[in-house]
């Protein structure tokens, strides 16, 4: 949580642009990461992140402090934006068709090519998980949010989030094993090509 966040939020709700600017500086990287991992393409992630903050700024007068962190409000906006985008883009592109192109402009400044390939593999595996599982994994292990914060964002109980997290990790592991270069499924896929 940002220092003096409550005061900043109050000022932003009153329409003070400088206060919202500080909130933007603090939360933009987190929201961008969240969107990028889920969407996979830099341009789309930038566009969506911009929309999330624009939406937040235009509707900040409706923000009510219900004891949840401000970030959970932003994540909720981001989730809704992503869902809307999937609805409109579903007919246009299929994941299988654009697989390589989709991750080619990922924007990782990795020195190690091996690590870059590994991350791309994780992202592909993530895309095979349910939306809720993806959200829980990103928020818990990339953004280090507490279970309570994640629960507030996904609008579920803390117990449900813990269960989802357990299942999501298990599922991701399974998908990653399937996609490993030496695995049976992977070799089968290679031979099919």
């Amino acid at each position, binding site marked *: 949580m940002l220092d003096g966040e409550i005061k900043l939020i109050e000022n932003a709700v009153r329409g003070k642009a400088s206060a919202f*600017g500080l909130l933007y500086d603090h939360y*933009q990287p987190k929201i961008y*990461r969240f969107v990028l991992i889920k969407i996979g393409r830099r341009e789309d992630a930038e566009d969506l992140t911009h929309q999330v*903050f624009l939406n937040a700024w235009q509707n*900040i007068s409706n923000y009510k402090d219900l004891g949840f962190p401000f970030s959970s409000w932003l994540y909720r906006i981001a989730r809704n934006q992503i869902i809307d985008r999937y609805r409109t883009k579903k007919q246009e592109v299929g994941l299988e068709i654009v697989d390589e192109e989709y991750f080619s402009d990922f924007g990782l400044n990795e020195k190690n090519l091996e690590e870059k390939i590994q991350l791309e593999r994780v992202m592909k595996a993530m895309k095979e998980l349910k939306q809720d599982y993806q959200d829980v994994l990103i928020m818990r292990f990339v953004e280090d949010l507490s279970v309570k914060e994640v629960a507030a964002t996904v609008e579920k109980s803390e117990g449900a989030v813990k269960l989802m997290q357990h299942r999501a990790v298990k599922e991701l592991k399974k998908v990653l094993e399937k996609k490993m270069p030496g695995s049976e499924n992977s070799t089968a896929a290679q031979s099919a090509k």
Partner: protein
Amino acid sequence: MEPIELLKKFKHLGADSDYTRKSKIVILSQGNDKLAGFSLASREIAAGVFRSGWSIAMTAVMLLLAIGSFSILKILSPAKTSVVDIGGLRAEAQAIDAQIELTNVFYNDILGLENKTSTVSAAPPEVKSPKAATVPTQNEINASLGSAETTSTKPTIDSVLDALSR
């Protein structure tokens, strides 16, 4: 490698600084329409309150001036205010009452005259309707005139004229 460890590697992902700067400028320059509307409305309300408050204050001042000037006049010139003669006013009011009484007496006189002359009147005089009393018929007038001739009390010319006019 464990999936959790792999996920943690995403932490270093970040947006392009040029994009971040431009996006922030664009968002903050968009302005908040709802808040702008709200602030405009609140400004109008404040102006309205100020205007009405000002008019109320002016009315209060005018009232104070009016009351104050009356009190000052009363204090400074008691002679002028004592011109109003309460005793005289009371006497005048009593005189008006007296006139009314006299008129009633006169009216009752006429009614009394009628009662005296109508020998077959069934209804008592007190239950007579006001309309009948105020507008005597021609027969009544004739009767009153005729009876006036027969009775010993001679009607005055004024009473006859008054009866005729009614």
